[in-house]
C-alpha cells in the first residue's frame, strides 16, 4: 500500500470522527474541536494528493489551497470560540438546549 | 393572429387606474375619490360600448403579450366576452352609485372603493381574456380583490367569513391551476374558440382530457357555488350590501358560471363535450343545486341569507343550460348570465335599502314595508316575479328558453326541476312580497336617515329603480335587436353553426 493511500485513509477517518463529533458532542468546545478535526482530515487528504503521480516535484497547487484553507478554518474556529465564550458569559450555557 | 389593439387593455385600465389612484388618496378626499370612481365607471361603459360597436362592424380586437416561453397573456374580444363585460361594466356603474350612497360616512372607504375597482377590473378581465391562462390569472386576481371587500366590516364575524371565503376560493383556484397547467401541457396554449385542438386530441388523449375537464370544472364550480362547494356564498353575506350585490350578481359567482360556459363551449366545444358525455354529471349536480338552494332558502329568516341561497339555486340554471345540448338551452343559459345578474342585484339593493333606512335585516320585520318604501319594494317585487319565472320579467325569458331546450333535448326531468324550482321560488319569495304589501306594520318604525320626500337617499333609490326597470325591460323588449336575448341567440347560433 502506497504512502498517500495511508494518508487518504487517515484523512477519511479523521473526517468521519470530526463530523461524528459535531453531531454527537454536547459541549460547544467539543463541537468546535470536532470541526477542527474535520478540517485536519480534509487538509491531510489535500496534501496527500500533492504527490499523486510520479512527478519530479510536488504539485504546488494543493499546498496553496491547503494554506488558504487553514487560514479560513482558523478564522472560523476563532470566531466560533468567541461566540461560545460570549454565550457562556451571558448565560452560563455550555451546550445547546434542545428546543430552539 | 389578429391585429393587436390597445382597446381591450384600456377597458381594464379604466378601472385599474382609478383603483390605484384611490389607494393613494387620503381618506377625506371624498369628492376627488367619487369623481375618479364615476369617471372610471363611465369610461368603462363607454369603452365597452365603443368596442361593441366596433365588433358589430366586424373588427377584431386583441391584445397579446408573451410572458415566458409559450405562456401568453391574451385579451381578445368575442361576443360572449363582450356580453359579460357589458354586464359587469354597466352594473359596476350602478353599484358604484349605490355604494357611494350606502357607505356615506363609513369607515375605510378608500380601501373599499379601491378594491371595488380592482374587483371589476378582474371581472372584465375574465370577460375579455382570450386564453385559458389569462382567464386563470384574472380568476385568481378576482379572489384577492374581493377578499378585502368581504371582510370590509372588520368584525370578527366578517373576518371569519373571509377566512371561509378564502379557503374555498383559493382551494378552487389551486384545483383550477392544476387543470389549467394540465390542459396546457396536453393541448398547448388554447385560445378560446379553438375547439379544433381538443377535437384533434380526442382520439389519443380522451382519458386525460376527461380528467382535466372535471378537475377544471371542480375549480370553477367553487365560484359558481355548485352544490358541495357553495358553502362560502351564504357566509360571505356579512359584507356590505353593495359588495354582496356585486359578489352575488356579477363579479364572483358569474366568473365561475362564465368559466363553465367558456370551458364547455370555447375550450372543449359542445360537440366534443357531448360525445365524451362530460355534461351529464354537470347537469345532475346543477339540478340538485337548484333544488337544494331553494329548499335551504325556505328556512332562512335573514333577508340576505335567503337571497344568497336563492343565488345558489339560480346560478345553477346557467350550468344546467350549459349541460343540456341544444340551441335553445344554450340561449337560455347565456341570457341567464345577464338576467339573473340584474334581477338579483335589484334584490340586494332592495335589501340594502331596507337595512340602511330602517335597520331591518330579518324577513319577519318587513311587515308593511311596501307602504313605506314603495319604489324599492316595487322593484323588488318585479325581481321576485322574474325569479319565479313569471312574464314579462327577464327571468321568464331565460326560463322559457331553458324549458323549451330541455323539452327539445328530450330530458323532461329537467323540466320538472325547473317547475319545482319555480314553485319553491314562489314559496320563499312571495311571503316577503305578501308581508311587504298586504300586512299591517306591527310597530311604527322611524327611518334611520331622514331623506326629505324620498323614501330613502336618492343614491340608494336610483340604482334599485334602474335595475328593477332594466330587469323588466329585458323581458318586455326581449325581441328587440340588441336586447340580451337577441345577443344570446346570436352567440348560440354561432356555436351551433355546422
Amino acid at each position, binding site marked *: 500500500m502506497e504512502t498517500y493511500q495511508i494518508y487518504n485513509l487517515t484523512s477519511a477517518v479523521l473526517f468521519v470522527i470530526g463530523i461524528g463529533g459535531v453531531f454527537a458532542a454536547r459541549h460547544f468546545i467539543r463541537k468546535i474541536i470536532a470541526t477542527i478535526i474535520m478540517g485536519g482530515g480534509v487538509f491531510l487528504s489535500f496534501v496527500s494528493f500533492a504527490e499523486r503521480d510520479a512527478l519530479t516535484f510536488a504539485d504546488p497547487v494543493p499546498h496553496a489551497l491547503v494554506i488558504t484553507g487553514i487560514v479560513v478554518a482558523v478564522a472560523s474556529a476563532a470566531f466560533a470560540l468567541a461566540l461560545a465564550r460570549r454565550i457562556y458569559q451571558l448565560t452560563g450555557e455550555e451546550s*445547546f438546549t434542545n428546543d430552539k | 393572429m389578429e391585429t393587436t389593439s390597445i382597446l381591450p387593455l384600456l377597458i381594464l385600465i379604466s378601472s385599474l387606474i382609478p383603483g390605484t389612484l384611490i389607494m393613494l388618496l387620503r381618506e377625506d378626499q371624498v369628492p376627488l375619490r367619487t369623481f375618479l370612481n364615476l369617471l372610471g365607471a363611465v369610461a368603462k361603459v363607454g369603452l365597452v360600448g365603443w368596442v361593441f360597436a366596433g365588433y358589430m362592424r366586424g373588427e377584431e380586437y386583441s391584445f397579446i403579450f408573451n410572458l415566458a*416561453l409559450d405562456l401568453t397573456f391574451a385579451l381578445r374580444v368575442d361576443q360572449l366576452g363582450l356580453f359579460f363585460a357589458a354586464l359587469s361594466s354597466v352594473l359596476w356603474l350602478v353599484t358604484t352609485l349605490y355604494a357611494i350612497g350606502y357607505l356615506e360616512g363609513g369607515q375605510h372607504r378608500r380601501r373599499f372603493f379601491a378594491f371595488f375597482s380592482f374587483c371589476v377590473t378582474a371581472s372584465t378581465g375574465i370577460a375579455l381574456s382570450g386564453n385559458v391562462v389569462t382567464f386563470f*390569472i384574472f380568476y385568481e386576481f378576482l379572489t384577492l380583490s374581493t377578499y378585502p371587500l368581504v371582510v370590509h366590516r372588520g368584525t370578527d364575524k366578517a373576518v371569519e367569513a373571509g377566512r371561509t371565503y378564502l379557503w374555498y376560493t383559493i382551494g378552487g383556484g389551486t384545483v383550477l391551476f392544476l387543470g389549467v397547467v*394540465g390542459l396546457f401541457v396536453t393541448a398547448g396554449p388554447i385560445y378560446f374558440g379553438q375547439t379544433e385542438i381538443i377535437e384533434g386530441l380526442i382520439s389519443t388523449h380522451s382519458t386525460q382530457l376527461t380528467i382535466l375537464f372535471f378537475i377544471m370544472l371542480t375549480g370553477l364550480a367553487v365560484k359558481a357555488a355548485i352544490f358541495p362547494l357553495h358553502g362560502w356564498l351564504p357566509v360571505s353575506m356579512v359584507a356590505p350590501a353593495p359588495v354582496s350585490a356585486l359578489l352575488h350578481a356579477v363579479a364572483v359567482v358569474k366568473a365561475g358560471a362564465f368559466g363553465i360556459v367558456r370551458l364547455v363551449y370555447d375550450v372543449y366545444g359542445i360537440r366534443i363535450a357531448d360525445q365524451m358525455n362530460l355534461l351529464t354529471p354537470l347537469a345532475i349536480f346543477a339540478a340538485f343545486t337548484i333544488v337544494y338552494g331553494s329548499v335551504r332558502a325556505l328556512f332562512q329568516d335573514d333577508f340576505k341569507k335567503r337571497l344568497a341561497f336563492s343565488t345558489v339555486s339560480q346560478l345553477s340554471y346557467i350550468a344546467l343550460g350549459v349541460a343540456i345540448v341544444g340551441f335553445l338551452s344554450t340561449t337560455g343559459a347565456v341570457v341567464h348570465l345577464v338576467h339573473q345578474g340584474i334581477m338579483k342585484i335589484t334584490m340586494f339593493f332592495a335589501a340594502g335599502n331596507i337595512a340602511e333606512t330602517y335597520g331591518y335585516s330579518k324577513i319577519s320585520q318587513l311587515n308593511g314595508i311596501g307602504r313605506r318604501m314603495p319604489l324599492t319594494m316595487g322593484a323588488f317585487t318585479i325581481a321576485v316575479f322574474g325569479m319565479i319565472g313569471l312574464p314579462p320579467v327577464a327571468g321568464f325569458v331565460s326560463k322559457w328558453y331553458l324549458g323549451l331546450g330541455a323539452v327539445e333535448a328530450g330530458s323532461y326531468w329537467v323540466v320538472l326541476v325547473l317547475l319545482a324550482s319555480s314553485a319553491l321560488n314562489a314559496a320563499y319569495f312571495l311571503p316577503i312580497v305578501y308581508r311587504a304589501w298586504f300586512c299591517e306594520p306591527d310597530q311604527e318604525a322611524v327611518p334611520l336617515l331622514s331623506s326629505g320626500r324620498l323614501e330613502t337617499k336618492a343614491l340608494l333609490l336610483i340604482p334599485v329603480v334602474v335595475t328593477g326597470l332594466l330587469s323588466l325591460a329585458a323581458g318586455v323588449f326581449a325581441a328587440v335587436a340588441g336586447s340580451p336575448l337577441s345577443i344570446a341567440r346570436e352567440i348560440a347560433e354561432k356555436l351551433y353553426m355546422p
Partner: protein
Amino acid sequence: MTDLPTSPFPAFLVGLPVLLATLSLFFRARGKAVVGLAGSLLTGVMALFALFEVTRRGTVIHILGGWEPPLGILLRMDPLAAVFIGMTAVVGIFISLYAWRYFRAQEATTGGFPLFWPLWLFLWAGLNGLFLSNDLFNLFVTLEVIGISAVALAVLSGKKTALVAGLRYLLVAITGSMAYLFGVALIYGSTGTLDLGLLGQVLEPGTTTTFALLVITLGLMIKMAGFPFHFWLPPAHSSALAPVSALLSALVVKGAFYILLRLWMEVFGVSLTYAAGQLIGLAGAIAVIWGSWQAFMQTSLKLIVAHSSVAQLGYLLMIFPLLILAPGVTADSADWLSPAWTAGVYQVIAHAFAKASFFLSAGIIIMALGHDRIESLRDLVGHMRITALAIAIAGVSLIGLPPSGGFMAKWMLLKGIFLSGQWWWAPVVLTGSLLTAGYVFMLLRLAFAPAREKEAFRPVPRSLEVCALVLALGSFLIVLPADNLIQFLQSGEVFGTGIESIMEGGAHGND
C-alpha cells in the same frame, strides 16, 4: 475558456465591496454607515452595469492579475451568474436603504449597529465572488467568506438567542464547507484540476467521484438547509435583525443552491442517476410540506417567515429530479428542461424579493410593536396599511398566485412535472401553495380583524414601509421581462454543458 471576451467588471464586483468594507472600518459609527450605504449603492449600480455588459457581450471572463489558472484565479460571468448578481444587486440596494433608515431610527437606543455595513459589504463581495468564480476551490473560499460574515451579521444584535442561533449556524456552516472541501480534495486528487468547465469534460465516473459527489452534495444541502438539515435556519433567521434576516434568507442560502445547481449540472453529470435526482426531489417535497406546515403553526411573525423559507427552498430542490433524465431519454426529446430551469431561476428571484420584503415588514412591525407575536397584528390595516399591503403582496407571490414571480415559478414547475410525466410531484406543489395560503391569509385575517386591546402602534418612518412595498412589488414586476430573461439564460453555455452532461449521466445512469 480564455477565448471568451474579458471584461474588468467581474474584478470590480468582487474587489469594490471588499475595498469599501475595509475602508469603512477606519471610520466612526456614522461614518461607517455613510460609507457602507454609499458603497452598497455603488456596488449595486456596478452589478447592474455588469449585467448589462453580459446581456450585450455574452459571457465575459476576467483573469485576476493575469495569472492563468490553475494557480491564478479566473472569474467567469455567464448569464446565470449575471442574473444572480443582478438579483443580489437589486435586493441588496433596497435592503441597504432600509437598513440605513432602520438603524438611524434606533441609533439612540442601540447605537445603530455600525458593524453591519462592513460585514454586509464583505458578504456581498462573497456572494458576487461565488457567482463569478469558476473553480471549486474559489467556491469554497467564497462560501466561507459568506458563511462567516453571515454568522457575524446574524449575531449582530448580541442577544442571547441570536448568539446561540449564530453559533449553531456557524458550526453547521463550517461542517458544510468542510464536507464540501473534502469533496473538492477528492476531485482534485482524481482529476488534478478544479476548473468547472474542464472538470465537466475530464471527470470519469468511479468510486472517488461518487464519494466526492456525496460529500459535496451533503455539504451544500446542509448549507442551504435542505430538508433533514433545516434545523439551524429558523432560529438563525428569526433571531437576527430585520435587514439581516432579509439578507440571510433572500440571498445567502441561494449561494449554496447556486453551487449545487452548477456542480450537478456541469460537473457531476457523469455519475448522476435518475434515482439520485428523485431522492433530492423527495427531500425538497418533504421540506415544502413540512416547512409550510410549521410556518402555519407558528405564532410569531419572524418564525413564520423563517419556516416558510425552508419550504420555499424545498421548491428549489424539487427541480433536480426534472433536470436529471431517466435512462434512455435524450435532452432533445426532454422538452421539460427549459420549464424546469425557468422554474428554478424564478423561484430563486421571486423568493428573494418576496422574502426580503416579508422580513423587512416584520422588522417594521417589531419596530412599531416591540415584538412580533401575530395576535397583536390585529387591525394592522388600520395603522400601517402600506406594510399590510407589502405583506399581502409578498405573501401572494409566495403562494404563487398570478401574476407574480412565484406564479411563474410554480407554473413552470408544474408544467415541467407534467411534461416529464413525474406527476407525483404535482400534489406536493399544490399542497405547498395551499398551506402557504394558509399562513399568509392567517396574517391577513388578523390584519383585518378588529383590535382587541389597544395595541400601541408606534409611528415608523414611511420610507421603511416604502422599501418593503417596493421589494414586494418587485416580486410581481419580474414577470414582465420573463421572456427576455429566459432567452438570455438560454443563450449561455450553462444550458449547453448542463444538458450535455445530463445526457451522459442519463446514459450511464443506473448501471
